[in-house]
């Protein structure tokens, strides 16, 4: 055991670049240039295949809900049972059907979230309802207020399917999953204060995750990597994510680049740098630094949800057509996701989210004034201006 600790220290020493501090204190840890870390065996000890699996599943479910080919039974199988997918986990090529991951049971499940079981059940049931509503659409009908069906952009460039309330379910579901699965898992579990504190002892002793000697990482290292996987796991090279809004990689990741496209927000680098520095600090056992980076990640990931919610509420103003209903369906999902986001270190309460959702019950009839009001409340919570998020490109 002593040897293990010694070798861990040696690895840590490699990671921790020496610095010019003139005191005898521990040298300040610095972030490596890429998200690359190795275990005591000298091999990479970064792994997040479970996160990749959930991303692939969410992506396929979204596609299925955008089309007219899947039955309700097939949609439910994908959402509840984690089966019926064709995709594979990018890093190891195995079928996501064999991953054992199930999206529905992960919804609103983070250990350190303050959601109640009743809330969790209600959200899962609501998503079930979204799937059912999509499957019930007459895909040949011309949709209007009160009539589910198809909507075509002028010129027939794109067809979207909406329910009688104007909800485009692939958007409402996908964006709700961004918050209730991915953001929740990141901020309320893997980089939550509680989980970090619980995992420090095992990290100090170099105990392998789950006491399984096959794992060349500690629990704390692994949790951090899982949060990273939820953020950058679908990048072509996850260790070096590319901040390019024209080449989006995954759901949450896409919106990091969207928000970052506006010079007022620098979320992409903030989050990436915090992940790198935090992981290096875990390896160096500098837990103040770990906590500080975790806080940066929680704040910035949350901000992305707030900005996108307000953005799509603004974008959905005006005449109701495939484009505005599409934007508002995204807004519904992001507003729902706010429940899992933090403002000043605290999750946004359910009744605040419910108030914002109320005018979005029917997207055909929501007024611009209502959309401005909801966007205004969200902007005030996060401390940005609505005007700054209307067009995220300038």
């Amino acid at each position: 055991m002593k040897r293990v600790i010694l070798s861990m220290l040696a690895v840590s020493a490699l990671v921790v670049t020496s610095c010019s501090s003139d005191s005898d204190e521990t040298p300040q840890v610095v972030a490596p240039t890429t998200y690359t870390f190795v275990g005591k065996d000298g091999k990479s000890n970064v792994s997040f295949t479970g996160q990749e699996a959930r991303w692939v599943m969410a992506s396929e479910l979204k596609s299925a809900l955008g089309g007219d080919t899947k039955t309700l039974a097939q949609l439910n199988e994908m959402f509840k049972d984690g089966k019926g997918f064709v995709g594979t986990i990018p890093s190891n090529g195995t079928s996501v059907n064999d991953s054992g991951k199930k999206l529905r049971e992960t919804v609103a499940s983070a250990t350190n979230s303050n959601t109640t079981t009743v809330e969790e059940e209600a959200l899962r049931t609501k998503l079930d309802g979204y799937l059912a509503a999509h499957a019930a659409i007459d895909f040949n009908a011309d949709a209007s207020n009160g009539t589910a069906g198809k909507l075509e952009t002028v010129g027939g460039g794109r067809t979207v399917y909406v329910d009688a309330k104007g909800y485009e379910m692939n958007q409402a579901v996908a964006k709700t999953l961004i918050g209730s699965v991915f953001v929740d898992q990141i901020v309320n579990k893997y980089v939550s204060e509680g989980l970090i504190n619980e995992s420090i002892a095992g990290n100090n002793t170099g105990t392998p995750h789950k006491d399984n000697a096959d794992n060349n990482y500690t629990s704390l290292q692994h949790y951090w990597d899982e949060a990273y996987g939820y953020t950058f796991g679908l990048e072509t090279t996850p260790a070096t994510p590319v901040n390019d809004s024209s080449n989006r990689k995954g759901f949450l990741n896409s919106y990091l680049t969207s928000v970052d496209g506006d010079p007022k927000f620098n979320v992409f680098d903030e989050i990436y740098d915090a992940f790198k520095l935090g992981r290096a600090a875990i390896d160096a056992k500098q837990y103040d630094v770990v906590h500080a980076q975790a806080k940066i990640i929680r704040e910035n990931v949350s901000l992305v949800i707030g900005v996108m919610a307000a953005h799509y509420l603004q974008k959905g103003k005006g005449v109701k057509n495939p484009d505005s209903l599409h934007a508002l369906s995204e807004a519904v999902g992001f507003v729902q996701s706010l429940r899992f986001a933090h403002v000043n270190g605290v999750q946004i309460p359910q009744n605040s989210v419910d108030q914002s959702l109320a005018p979005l019950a029917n997207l055909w009839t929501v007024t611009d004034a209502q959309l401005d009001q909801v966007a205004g409340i969200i902007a005030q919570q996060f401390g940005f201006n609505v005007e700054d998020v209307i067009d995220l490109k300038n």
Partner: protein
Amino acid sequence: MKRILYICLLLLVIACGSSNDDPGTSNPDNFNRKEMLTFWADQVIIPGYSDFTQKTNSLKDAVLSFTATPSTANLTTARNAWKEAYITWQKVSLFQIGKAQELNMVGNMNTIPTNATLIDSYAKSGSYNLESPNLIGVQGFPALDYLLNGIGTDQETITFYTTATDAAKFKKYLEDITNRLYNLTKQVSDDWKGSYRQSFIDNDGYTISSSVDKMVNFYVIPFYEKQLRDAKIANPSGAKTGITDVKLVEAYYTKNISKELFTTAMLATKNFFKGVGYNGNTGKSLQQYLEFLNRKDLSDLINTKFNDIDQKASLLKDNFEDQIQNERAVFLNTYDAMQALLKSFKPDMFSALSIKNTSTDSDND
């Protein structure tokens, strides 16, 4: 705890909603926006929509007379009523605010081109949901243009609505879209005559949701840029794409009123800027606003550009389809003059008036 949260939310809502009622704190200028809004409502929009309601009502009566008795005389009356209403639409189409926006008046009244093939199939099926955004291209003035002016000679048209197969179905369709055109118009007009007028005027603040900011945004981008410059000039002549498509000419089946539709809309645009009311009286305007802010240079420039557009457009002929094929440069020159004015609107007038351009045209999917 729950109660405290509700109170907090309520306070937030109040804080947001009341910003317009407190002109002392954040007004960038002292221009009397309320007076301008009152002029717009009482002297421009409400009389405009009253007139348009009358014209669409006459159109409805004329079409119903024609479908009841498809005679040459009734056809002529219906066509004339259609033309009068279409011209009047040009004077009110820039007010895409309130009910007009909610009902998508621009889309439902004037989506170009109309889809004749789809009209035929919907009419014959007897089953159509005119409220669906999918059907904006098969109703409104362009669809009526097809059904009244695009079927053939007078006699052929009368036959089409009397003895031809599906005559009854096409009559029904013609009636349905005419009724809808009137009903939509009446809803907008009634809303202005009801409670909307006062809330429009009272919303005289300086936020993206205040009446002036919204009107200026509608005026410049969805109306001037998209409806006037693009739909009427650029799209059929290919001024932006280099590809002409005469099927995109406004009033394609009538042929000879395209210029009048354009110049009517252009005059409405100019009058709105200068502060000339629907019946010719004057009032507070964007021009006065700019002058108030010591930007007479910009308002002069805008007026010069309006005059330049008029000059270029004076060379347009009644029949756009013909002229696009034989004398396209006139369209390109008109487009350039319109483009020059757009630059003075956006960004110059926006920034002079401290109005945020709120148009979003990117998708973040």
